[in-house]
């Protein structure tokens, strides 16, 4: 993924700063709460939502199970319709392919439709290094680019900015990139949108190369689909002479008919609309209408590694609606930057560590960036069980084990930072397997309860800093049970312990 994110601190450290920023907190709270209610209303309009969601899940799962076949078919159809298909195993290769394609046109600038895949591979930076300027044309991406900022949301990358901040960025920065902002620009959203319209129009009208991603690729027909709102997508897809689309391999769907599911669930989940203002669909090239050359770059970059994990694979169902970000209590407070990836929020917490591996501090911490409340799973239009994958990835971080990286099976060593946790779990396992030892330990704990510290020492301090340690009762549960049931064999010898054990099997043995 993008080099911008290298060396990011772990999530808790990054989140700590964000949580202390009152403007950021207010901006995020306002935006996420606005969209939450609207989404719920838009979804409630369809009484078959649960069935659409299940169909979406099934389509994506089936596609992933037969991914190779669908990609080969897609390639065949796109080629037959006049397009050229390229395959990129990783970010560097994709960047190289796009750079060479742009160079071959002789152009030094491209206009871009908002695309997660090109953000993921750091395409703009790669083009810049080759002397090619990439203009972002989505309003929020423009705000991020002009402000030399990083995106913090999948759908609305500038969600962390309020209208006043956006006005200031436009007034200050637009002239460095082209047409300056109108004099006396206020922070009215309609005026800000107008400023973007004027600023970008000259770029659209002179652009010779467009770069995009895609929301869906139909294997059966070779059709590409882009769902958008502003019309900047239509501009980039139809005005240039050359169009280059960089698309993750998991974006393929088998048939034309499958769109009937996603075109109903995606707009309602992302912007809470019955339908987004513009959707473009094209198949290869069309004589006299739109670009004469179309290149499709199919991107792996960690997706096949993710596919190799039976539990984690479901993250590839994602259609990038961002509903999970908007409902997440952690995202709402920490903001998108703390996730150290172009994919923030709950989906980012399961996608980034799978696409990038868990070697870095930030990626190893992401599976913990959640309270496991499950709101993300509930709103997901393709039913990704994000909490399940989070727990699965926590296991991978703590215990290590076998996983796939760059297409090869690798054994991951347990993370060092979790040594105390592993030691504690091992000790607990030992004690729970030996009833006598457990009983002796409980009694010892009960007798020394007044001497117990309120916080844990050493590495445990971080844990007890935000939690109360449980108080130990005066008497262990099993002792109390035996006493009040009036048993005569109350001694702690082996046979007594065994019979007490037998009795507590049905009930929940506290202590």
């Amino acid at each position: 993924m993008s080099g911008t994110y290298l060396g990011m601190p772990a999530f808790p450290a990054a989140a700590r700063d964000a949580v202390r920023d009152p403007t950021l907190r207010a901006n995020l709270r306002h935006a996420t709460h606005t969209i939450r209610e609207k989404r719920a209303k838009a979804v409630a309009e369809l009484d078959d939502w649960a069935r659409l969601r299940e169909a979406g899940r099934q389509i994506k799962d089936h596609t992933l199970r037969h991914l190779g076949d669908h990609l080969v078919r897609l390639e065949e159809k796109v080629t037959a319709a006049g397009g050229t298909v390229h395959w990129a195993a990783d970010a560097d290769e994709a960047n190289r392919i796009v750079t060479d394609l742009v160079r071959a046109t002789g152009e030094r600038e491209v206009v871009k439709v908002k695309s997660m895949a090109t953000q993921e591979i750091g395409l703009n930076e790669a083009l810049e290094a080759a002397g090619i300027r990439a203009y972002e044309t989505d309003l929020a991406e423009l705000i991020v680019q002009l402000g030399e900022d990083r995106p913090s949301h999948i759908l609305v990358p500038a969600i962390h900015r309020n209208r006043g901040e956006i006005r200031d960025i436009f007034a200050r920065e637009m002239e460095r990139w082209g047409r300056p902002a109108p004099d006396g620009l206020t922070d009215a959203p309609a005026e800000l949108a107008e400023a973007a319209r004027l600023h970008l129009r000259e770029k659209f009208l002179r652009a010779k190369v467009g770069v995009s991603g895609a929301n869906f690729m139909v294997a059966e027909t070779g059709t590409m689909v882009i769902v958008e709102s502003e019309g900047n997508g239509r501009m980039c897809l139809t005005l240039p002479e050359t169009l280059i689309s960089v698309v993750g391999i998991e974006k393929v769907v088998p048939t034309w008919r499958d769109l009937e599911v996603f075109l109903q669930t995606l707009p309602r989940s992302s912007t809470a609309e019955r339908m987004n203002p513009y959707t473009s669909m094209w198949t290869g090239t069309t004589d006299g209408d739109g670009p004469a050359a179309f290149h499709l770059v199919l991107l792996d970059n960690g997706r096949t590694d993710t596919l190799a994990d039976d539990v984690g694979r479901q993250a590839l169902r994602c259609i990038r609606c961002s509903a999970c970000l908007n409902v997440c209590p952690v995202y709402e407070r920490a903001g998108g930057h703390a996730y150290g990836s172009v994919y923030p929020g709950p989906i980012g917490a399961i996608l980034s560590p799978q696409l990038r591996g868990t070697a870095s501090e930030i990626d190893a911490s992401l599976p913990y960036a959640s309270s496991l409340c499950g709101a993300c799973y509930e709103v997901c239009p393709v039913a990704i069980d994000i909490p399940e994958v989070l727990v699965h990835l926590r296991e991978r971080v703590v215990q290590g084990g076998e996983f796939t990286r760059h297409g090869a099976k690798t054994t991951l060593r347990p993370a060092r930072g979790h040594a105390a946790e592993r030691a504690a779990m091992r000790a607990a396992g030992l004690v729970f397997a030996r009833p006598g030892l457990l009983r002796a330990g409980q009694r010892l704990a009960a007798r020394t309860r007044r001497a117990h510290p309120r916080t844990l020492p050493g590495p445990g301090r971080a844990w007890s800093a935000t939690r109360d340690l449980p108080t130990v009762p005066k008497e262990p549960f099993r002792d109390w049970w035996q006493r009040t049931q009036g048993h005569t064999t109350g001694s702690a010898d082996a046979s007594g312990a065994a019979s007490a054990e037998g009795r507590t099997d049905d009930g929940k043995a506290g202590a």
Partner: protein
Amino acid sequence: MTSRDIILGRIGRALGPVPDEPYDTAVDRDYARVHGERTAEQTVDLLAENLADYRALVHRTDQAGLPDLLLRLLSGRGARHVLVPPALPPEWLAAADPVRVHDRAAAGVDELDRADSVVTGCAVAVAETGTLVLDGSPDQGRRRITLIPDHHICVVRVPGQVVSSVPEALERLDPLRPLTWISGPSATSDIELDRVEGVHGPRTLEVVLVSGSPGAGA
């Protein structure tokens, strides 16, 4: 080894042996094909309602009233240069007398940028979502002509061109044609996740529902 081989190889190893599963039966398509029951007339009403909900301006007329209505809509905006696709029915603009700019392949984008308005037909309209779909047929023209001018008038023949739902629309459309689905004027939710109309596409979308015309399907 090409990257294509590498990626397909990785996929094969990731999945292991996969049994054949016919796709026809792999997905439960028990979701609704249409939401609610409506007569053809009610479906047209729903289309009008949903178009208006997303700030499209909706007008209704019959075949005979169409030329006068278009005259009013164009002169109301002071449109002098009106872009038209190659095969717009000539009688539609019989009353209006603007400078017609016929779209030609050679027309540069600056030429299109000077047009005040564009008038087109459509391929199909979706009532449940308030959506118009253009497919580049001769009465709709190239994709760019409905994008660059700030004012788009789209004529929908009702009830023939109106379907209820997205599934019905997809069934009528040809995926090999370049398709543009339009639901209201250009808009953005990028400022504080609140919808604002009017960014890059036409900021005014007017839809004329014409009844009593032969129901030209897609």
